[in-house]
């Protein structure tokens, strides 16, 4: 790749060089003619040797002068090119830098510098239009997710209450009870998906902005205690290697959600009677659980990327993790080695 102006300059230089080379015989012919004309006028006769010498001299000087002018042209072109590309293209580079720094997620607006060059000004206004359109669509989409989830809460509450009431009907059969319970379970799942969607929208809307210093070691230990009712039920053991006094800066609610989602996943997808390894040091957190097959990395952190009948999660847990990590510029990773799924967060 080369810069646009360098390309045009090469052509210009080539053309100038060509013209100058062609000019050498032309100059020679013209000067030679004039020279002979003058000699004839003043009736000066030259010896053959002197005439040859003159011809060579003329050729030499014409060539030298041509090369000199060519060099002058070249230097001029290069200097001019530099100045032009700096001055003329400056608005373009400014706009480019603006676009490079633009991030739809971060909601900042882009303002291009005023320019008196028509093409760039047109480019900038088109870019402005494009970006404004993008921001509008993005906001609409977020608003939609937010509104939709809110609007869903009330009908969900109604269904839930009706099921709870239905359960109070005298003399239900076991079969009817099971039907209600199945509906309850599905409803609980919808509710969770909805809550997580709301949460995602809130994080994307840059809520939860307040930060504090969090003792991650302590928070992690507390979360593990909280989850012990689930892990004990599956007869899982936490193999902990948690350094004490690891602190990070962040929003406590978000960090809690991050930990809970990672631990939940590990517990959910680990078969009974196994060990989950949890390692925390000052640089990173690792949660490893046994597995048989590597997961699809590119689908893993996407919304609903990995949901299936066998994995009855909300499909949003890991995208929440990713969203929270990207807020604080932490890195999330997944690797599969030694028949273990290893999720890590590097601070």
């Amino acid at each position, binding site marked *: 790749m080369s810069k646009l102006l360098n390309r045009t300059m090469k052509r210009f230089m080539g053309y100038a060089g060509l013209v100058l080379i062609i000019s050498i015989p032309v100059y020679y012919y013209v000067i030679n003619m004039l020279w002979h004309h003058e000699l004839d006028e003043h009736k000066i006769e030259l010896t053959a040797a002197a005439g040859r010498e003159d011809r060579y001299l003329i050729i030499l000087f014409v060539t030298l002068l041509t090369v000199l002018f060519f060099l002058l042209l070249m230097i001029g072109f290069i200097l001019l090119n530099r100045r032009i590309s700096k001055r003329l293209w400056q608005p373009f580079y400014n706009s480019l830098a603006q676009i490079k720094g633009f991030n739809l997620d971060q909601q900042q607006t882009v303002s291009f510098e005023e320019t008196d060059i028509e093409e760039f000004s047109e480019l900038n206004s088109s870019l402005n239009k494009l970006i404004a359109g993008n921001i509008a669509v993005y906001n609409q989409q977020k608003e939609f997710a937010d509104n939709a989830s809110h609007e869903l809460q*009330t009908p*969900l509450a109604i269904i839930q209450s009706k099921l709870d009431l239905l359960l109070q009907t005298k003399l239900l059969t076991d079969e009817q*009870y099971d039907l209600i319970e199945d509906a309850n379970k599905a409803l609980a799942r919808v*509710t969770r998906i909805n809550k997580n969607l709301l949460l995602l929208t809130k994080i994307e809307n840059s809520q939860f902005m307040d930060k504090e210093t969090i003792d991650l070691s302590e928070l992690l230990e507390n979360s593990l205690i909280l989850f012990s009712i689930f892990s004990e*039920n599956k007869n899982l053991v936490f193999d902990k290697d948690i350094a004490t006094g690891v602190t990070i800066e962040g929003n406590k609610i978000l960090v809690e959600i991050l930990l*809970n989602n990672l631990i*939940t996943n590990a517990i959910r997808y680990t078969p009974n009677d196994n060990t989950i390894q949890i390692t925390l040091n000052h640089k990173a957190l690792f949660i490893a659980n046994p597995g048989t097959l590597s997961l699809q990395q590119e689908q893993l952190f996407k919304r609903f990327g990995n949901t299936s009948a066998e994995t009855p999660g909300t499909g949003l847990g890991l995208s929440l993790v990713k969203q929270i990590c990207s807020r604080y510029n932490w890195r999330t990773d997944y690797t599969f080695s030694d028949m273990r799924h290893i999720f890590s967060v590097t601070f």
Partner: protein
Amino acid sequence: MKILIIEDEPALSKSIGAYLADENYLCEYAGNFGQAIDKITVYDYDCILLDLMLPGGDGLKILEEIKEQNKQDGVIIISAKNSLDDKIKGLQIGADDYLTKPFHLPELAARIYSVIRRKQFGNVNIIELNELKINLLAKTVSVNDNNVVLTKKEFDLLLYFISNKNKVISKSALAEHLSGDVADMFDNYDFIYVHIKNLKKKLTEAGCDNYLKTLYGTGYKWEI
């Protein structure tokens, strides 16, 4: 016991009313801001269930009004918004509890029970049910005056059942109650068995009648 349900969705307030009706609760309804203000000004309630998004005004204004009138009514906010700001604001103004929609009716009943107990029995908050005695403040339980040592979860479960007497409680409602906000893993409800089994065992071993019945295989009912 008088309860005011301030909720603009009639299908929901009807369900709540129907569930609470057999529990000695008398329910009244307000479907919009104006009705709610009228009712709270004229009457006293033991507990008010308050939806925050109402036609005609902000639910938090009603809460402010209740506090301004120096009413002693207990207030539980039931909101579709799971917003921490609203929660903190509501509790600061003086709500007693905050429940996010959707919720299980037994959960709501348990919260109402606890708010009313707290408001009305203050320092001597002891529930007596035949041979069973529960001290809510000290969190102790005794059967025929013999102490029964329960874990926090078991004590919690016992209260949950007692505030939902003679109601069928589904496994999913129990699971949600026990795991609270933290868990995203209700697809496995088995963890509640252990707690219920232990609670039952401890109570019967201390000489308590078996009030906790298993229904339909996985449902429960505190029959008294």
